[in-house]
């Protein structure tokens, strides 16, 4: 029973997010709308953490596996990619390091030693 209710809430919010994504002319994906909806409901006390936590933690736990199919799909894009493979890979990797370092250092400096 518990899991039925939890799944109903989480998938219901996903559905609401999907609906907002179609309805509003903003480039916000369904998952991000759903995230904010859930956050608002939790903050407003309309939902309690216990009402979504078990299923939520299950989904977060298996989340890394969810990227496997799309990543394997890179095989399919190999044709389009060949001509610009080197710049694409180099730029993607180098700029990831730069963005991570800049964000991390700025945050670290601003937060100082406090936790």
């Amino acid at each position, binding site marked *: 029973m518990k899991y039925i209710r939890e799944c109903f809430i*989480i998938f219901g919010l996903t559905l609401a997010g999907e609906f907002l994504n179609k309805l509003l002319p903003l480039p916000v994906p369904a998952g991000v709308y759903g995230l904010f909806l859930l956050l608002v409901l939790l903050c407003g006390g309309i939902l309690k953490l216990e009402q979504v936590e078990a299923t939520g933690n299950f989904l977060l736990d298996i*989340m890394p596996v969810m990227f*496997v199919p*799309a990543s394997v799909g890179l*095989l399919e894009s190999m044709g389009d990619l060949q001509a610009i493979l080197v710049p694409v890979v180099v730029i993607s990797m180098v700029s990831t390091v730069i963005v991570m370092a800049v*964000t991390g250092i700025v*945050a670290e400096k601003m937060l100082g030693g406090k936790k």
Partner: protein
Amino acid sequence: MMNFVSESMYLGFVLSLGAYLAGVWLKKRLGWAVLNPLLTAVVLVIAVLLAFKIDYQTYNSSAQYISYLLTPATVCLAIPLYKQLELLKKNLVAVAVAITSGVAASAVSIFAMSLVFGLEHVHYVTILPKSITTAIGMGVSEEAGGIVTITVVCIIITGIFGNIMAEALFKWIRVKNPIAKGLALGTSAHAIGTAKALELGEIEGAMSSLSIAVAGLMTVVVVPLAAQLL
């Protein structure tokens, strides 16, 4: 036998889970940071598909149900975020400035390297949204006139690479604060980076989840402006 493989509704699903478990096992066994379970899983699945001549459609006909769970899982990122809400309120300015710097650094670094490689406009705008989550990135790329399939490739390379190198980078540049680590992972490597942040800890996971949404939305505004540069 081949019939069974191409008609199975569970093969891709089980293969993906098994490959990930093998990745976790291998990392534990050898302890090398490059042996990221996600990367191992992708390589293993590709190897199996090639070895048994299974095409991607066959694999994906069942593996797609794993991908299907990604949107509800994204919704659930609100859970760690809610638990750390007080921490977020207390550090709101630092959080906002750090994510903004990251988004700006992304646009500037991609612009500079596109000049170095002499990329055409179409390829430049294709790569621009690479640090944000696929669902937003695809839309941004399309809007800017990029090649969406290649944008997805960039997003995934970014995510996996960010996930793999984060811990080493943080050590090297001496980023120790869990809030800073979370913001850096989410801003640079979206949801795949957030998977790593959740492994590091609850605060890291919460801040990374927040960064996916904030950096994603900022990038929507920044890309059309940055696109005019080249």
